[in-house]
């Protein structure tokens, strides 16, 4: 799975990274954002809703940082 390391970045930088790289993966494929900024928890699902992508859920990276998974739909 393509993973974007956004540790240490504050909002809205992780969402900007996600928007820049969503087309790195094919339609139907997954991309993950690893972000320790508190806003990402709300903003990744909200970004998916606003842009028509699918939020696939939250996981935890090896170092404990939250990892937010998105499926590219369009």
């Amino acid at each position: 799975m393509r993973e974007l390391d956004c540790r240490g970045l504050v909002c809205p930088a992780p969402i900007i990274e996600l928007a820049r790289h969503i087309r790195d993966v094919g339609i139907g494929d997954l991309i993950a954002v690893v972000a320790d900024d508190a806003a990402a928890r709300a903003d990744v699902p909200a970004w998916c809703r606003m842009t028509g992508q699918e939020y696939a859920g939250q996981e935890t990276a090896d170092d404990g940082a939250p990892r937010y998974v998105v499926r590219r739909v369009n």
Partner: protein
Amino acid sequence: VPPVASPAGAPDPAARVYLDSASGEPLHPAARQAFAAALDAAYADPRRLHHAGRSARLLLDNARAATAEALGVRPDEVTFTASGTAAVHRGLLGLHRGSERHGRTLVHTAVEHSAVLHAAAWTGSPARSVPVDVTGRVRLDDLDLADASVVACQSANHEVGTVQPVTAVADRAGRVPVFVDACASTGRLPLPEGWAALAASAHKWGGPPGVGVLVVRRGSRWRDPFPEDERASEHETGFENVPAILASAAALQAVVTERDEQAPRQRAQVDRIRRVVGGLTNVDVVGDPFDRLPHLVTFSCLYVDGEALVTELDRLGFEVASGSACTASALEPSHVLAAMGALTHGNVRVSVSRETTDADVERFLSVLPAAIERLRAQL
């Protein structure tokens, strides 16, 4: 050293536009007049039996009667506090304490003001959050009353304006008392029904800062959650700021009288902002578009730092608030926006006052799109 406040002057087309009435409404002229008149007449302690004390008591009781009438409650149900926050604390915690024998869990909507959430946490008792829908309205079907001591449900949300179904919550709560934080709506909308205690804040309706209103309905199980103070009633604490209370009561009477004229005007201004902002690319207007407070609207702009947008708009002469926390000034983004599933970054709250003109709104709307694009281009 620059002056701390600029004096009022003639209307100036380049004047700054204040669009943050939800944080504090400019002082109503009726409040200014009452405050000035009371400064010389209401200095004494209203508890004292001498002439000056009785004069202060008379003025305080007049303010109480006027406030009660404007709110549609009984005068003996009204207590003045030192702030809206103090009224929230006393109202919520007093009901919680009064219900000790019936339940221990404070139940609250997920979008209550932080004063409610922090007060609940302070008790050390369990607390349970009731989720909201995408407009920020509490999900009635998720109201779980097990072991409940009190249910806190705001009258309307302070960040997004959505009106809450307080009476339906109270119907479901049955014997569990309902606390209403009405700070965002008091003076602007009639009070809901069915609650046991309610808090309001004068500076949000055009009174001076430093005056809160606590209303405890007769027959409610309310017990003082804080150290006793030997005032006229157990609901009271501290020496009342009688001039500011009189000013608050005068402002409340005035805004309730002017409501039928002001609310539709403000509603139309907010509708206009909602329509224009809703048409911008990657901008989400949040909150209920219809069943809402008349004077405020919140929207979130993708790929924009909300606090940078506040600063940029301020540079252009427009004063707005933000629920975003993209810089060091706040650690957590708005819990209200997060609970609604709304974007927390790029957030701006615009709230009009009785002084906001249609021309102010148009000037704001004429600079906003370019301000958003400038910030997006920087990132």
